[in-house]
């Protein structure tokens, strides 16, 4: 029984790691740009399909293809930020949020038009399973964990050690104060779009590694991403790391006791319970 529980825990940790990578960029946009970017999930899909095209159609190796997919997604996110969101930001976060739903539809429709019908799988070997103390884990699951760990660590270093990272933090804490202290708001905003969309690109790489791709698979993750972001609350991005793991482990461990159909319900039940007890979310700042 303990091995079985450990097996569910491993599945939950992997789910949590995927959610962390998928949510970090979403939370970053929310902190710096001040709105819920619903189109973030579509960027995961675009990255996944760029990767799929390079590996399956062009026959490239996985890692360089992944780097290119992340790069293109980052630039696309920056482009959308400048062309769509920047001009309407003055109308307030609700207008930008609704516009991001429109952007999600445009990106989703574009994917449908380019990729077409049906489902796709990456042209990579079947996952290999390893057992540690009787608990099974595949190489792709380990890759997702590693990707989340490296992303979390790199982001922490970037935010605390680089000038751009520090200005992003200043902007997210207090944009007016940051501007009055001479921080280039426009430049910082662009850096944020590049970073958050690049993180969406990384989420797309994780998705392509473990999931079967269809044009709507990425968008189907948006509710769980929102659940993690709400649970994390505003404030430090570190709370996203904890929230992602809490949601991932809770969803997958729940299958041990509850019908699997209740998995998404668990994520939101958790959000409601945490917000009742701690309205500011897991981080220290109010939403």
């Amino acid at each position: 029984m303990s091995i079985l529980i450990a097996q569910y825990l491993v599945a939950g940790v992997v789910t949590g790691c995927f959610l962390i990578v998928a949510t970090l960029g979403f939370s970053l946009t929310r902190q710096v740009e001040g709105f819920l970017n619903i189109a973030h999930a579509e960027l995961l899909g675009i990255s996944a399909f760029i990767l799929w095209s390079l590996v399956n159609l062009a026959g490239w190796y996985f890692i360089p293809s992944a780097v290119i997919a992340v790069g293109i997604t980052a630039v696309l996110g920056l482009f959308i930020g400048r062309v769509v969101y920047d001009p309407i930001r003055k109308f307030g976060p609700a207008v930008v949020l609704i516009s991001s739903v429109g952007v999600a539809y445009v990106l989703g429709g574009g994917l449908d038009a380019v990729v077409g019908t049906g489902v796709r799988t990456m042209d990579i070997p079947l996952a290999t399973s390893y057992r540690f103390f009787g608990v099974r884990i595949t190489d792709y699951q380990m890759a997702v964990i590693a990707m989340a760990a490296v992303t979390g660590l790199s982001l922490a270093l970037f935010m605390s050690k680089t000038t751009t990272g520090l200005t992003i933090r200043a902007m997210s804490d207090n944009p007016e104060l940051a501007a009055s202290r001479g921080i280039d708001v426009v430049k910082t905003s662009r850096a944020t779009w590049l970073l958050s969309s690049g993180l969406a690109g990384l989420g797309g790489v994780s998705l392509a590694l473990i999931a079967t791709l269809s044009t709507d698979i990425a968008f189907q993750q948006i509710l769980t991403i929102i659940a993690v972001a709400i649970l994390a609350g505003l404030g430090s991005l570190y709370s996203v790391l904890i929230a992602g793991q809490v949601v991932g482990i809770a969803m997958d461990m729940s299958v041990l006791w509850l019908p699997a159909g209740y998995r998404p319900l668990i994520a939101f039940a958790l959000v409601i319970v945490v917000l009742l007890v701690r309205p500011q979310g897991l981080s220290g700042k109010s939403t």
Partner: protein
Amino acid sequence: MTSKLTFKKRLASSVVALSMALGPQAASAEEGVTFGVLVPLTGELGEFGKIVANGVQLAVNQINDEGGTSCGPIRTVVADTGGNPETGIREASKMIESESAVAILGPTSGVMVALADLAKRTETMLMSPYAGTITLNELGGDFVFRTVASDLGDGAVSGLWLEERGYKSVAFLIQNEESTISPAEIAKSAVEDAGIELTDYIVYNPGQPSYQAELISVLAHNPDAIYLAGGQNSSVTVIKEATAGGFEGEWLFTADLAVPEVFDLIGAELLNDRAFVEQADSDPSLPEYQAYSELHQSKTDGEDPGPFSANSYDMANLVALAMEASGECTGAGINSKIRDVAHEGDVVTTFAEGRAALQQGAEINYEGASGPVAFDETGTVTSPYTVSAAKDGVWVLEKFYPASTFIE
């Protein structure tokens, strides 16, 4: 997509040519009559939608080539639902109001259910060649029909197969949708009655990147077989993850995986000699099916008809024949005669034969490429079923269950 456009162009030119050739006629006959083809051309069921649209178009082209109906040539307008009921309602309304469509052909289960009320209210014939949902057992029979059996039949044939195969233990993995849960419940009863150990009965939500958590218990029990009733997206992930997790038993899939693409998606080596798929299917030995297969091949560079292709062809022919029999170019006319043209009378196997018999005042019984298509009180036909086996990267017919197997 290219072939669809070609079809459309060909149809458009044949409509123009026909109107020019026929010259002055009654206004309605000159204008022709419109069938709306409402299918998913994008999304997970896009492959099926294309097959259905092509099957309908083959029938329509054949009818028009043979002089059209007494209402004039049939024109088709095609719209993509993406499998989404809301889009289905919007597109169907447009077809009925702007295009004066007398029939809406080809919606999937969810869209059919959403459109049932609209069809009855606007007196438009609504028909599907693959909507198996048991909800239509309640809603169907008046303006709502289908040329495929109810999902309950899929459950019955699955149960029968699992029993006949001699498995000692089976796990069920079912996508959380009414259309997959209903047949799974029937199959589950059959498995339990046969004394087979049901190790797991897991209903999972689609759209997840991974199903590892759902598979843990299944893999721990290591059953002889897994019955997997899911869409292509979730099923491909489940099969790969189960195999990577060490599952070495056999599989029984439902019709969503009865397409050749699954071998590329999953890898033929993971399926060959251990995977089976059940589906409501035509009897390949029927001369009518063989004739249709030849027609299909001649129009599509040698492609065999895909799943539900024959049912789609029959659907369009039945609607056209009902229109002929009623003498009215309306949905109400079609609805009044749709049962009669496939019930008792001279057996006819093509629209041209049926029209000739009707003109002589005879009653007709259309038996088409998918076999007999007599509707029961719920507007549903009784289908034969097949179980196919994965062999050398293709689905090969393993067992044919005639429709009579499931008639109590």
